[in-house]
């Protein structure tokens, strides 16, 4: 049974200075940073750019450490699905260790992390319009 993954929704680029890495990619590749998000209480700073259907998510701590050179790495990717609860159930039926779907930082979206069986690639599933935007937790 297919999980109904339609495309790569976003690719995570993890950086110790996500603002600097996002700016570097934006300038060098000529891509526009569409959204900047700092989440109080979660200790993260994220910036987002989009190349056709795929979002590049630059994720890092809220502030870079002083004197530290920016260092980044590919931090996995997220597959878009139409029905995340059905996809999670289908994966579990195949013996895949996948977490429960929970609200994502994207308003109205739910996300579930896959914890093993991905050949070393951090992978998750996301469904947009999974919940009413009003039900999202504060700060998301």
């Amino acid at each position: 049974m297919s999980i109904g993954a339609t495309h790569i929704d976003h690719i995570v680029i993890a950086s110790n200075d996500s603002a600097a890495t996002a700016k570097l990619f934006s300038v060098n590749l000529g891509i526009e940073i569409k959204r900047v998000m700092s989440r109080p209480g979660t200790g993260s700073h994220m910036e987002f750019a989009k190349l056709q259907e795929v979002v590049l998510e630059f994720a890092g701590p809220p502030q870079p450490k002083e004197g530290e050179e920016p260092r980044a790495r590919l931090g996995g990717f997220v597959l878009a699905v139409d029905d995340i609860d059905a996809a999670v159930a289908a994966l579990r039926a195949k013996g895949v260790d996948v977490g429960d779907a929970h609200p994502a930082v994207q308003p109205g979206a739910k996300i579930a992390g896959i914890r093993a069986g991905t050949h070393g690639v951090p992978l998750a599933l996301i469904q947009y319009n999974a919940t009413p935007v009003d039900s999202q937790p504060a700060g998301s």
Partner: protein
Amino acid sequence: MKTRKIDHVGIVVKDIDAALATFSRHFGFQADGSRGGEVAALGIKNAFMPVGESDLEFIQPTSDQGPVAKFAQERGEGQFMLSIAVEDVTAAVEHLRGLGVRVGDPSNGVAFVSMKSSHGVNLQLIQR
């Protein structure tokens, strides 16, 4: 410089057949049998699996030399490279060099950005 899309995500694996079987079984993706194979000059074999408008490229080292083998030795399996499709790879290289970015000469429509110029991310530019 005109970027078009994320062309593919390169994933280094120990056993390419096992990886294809996993991603097919778990996610329902199908390998594109018309592409990939042994690339002796690079010491790898690869296979492609379309996902939407992009591909997953599975890469298995076939020698103990080269960047893929080094990645496998140091980190095992995992996400190795991000490939970005550009309209004109020669123009893209000229553009990047004009910005002071270290980037290799284009070869067969492909050029690699130095990881020293990308905060350590392995970036490939490709013209299809």
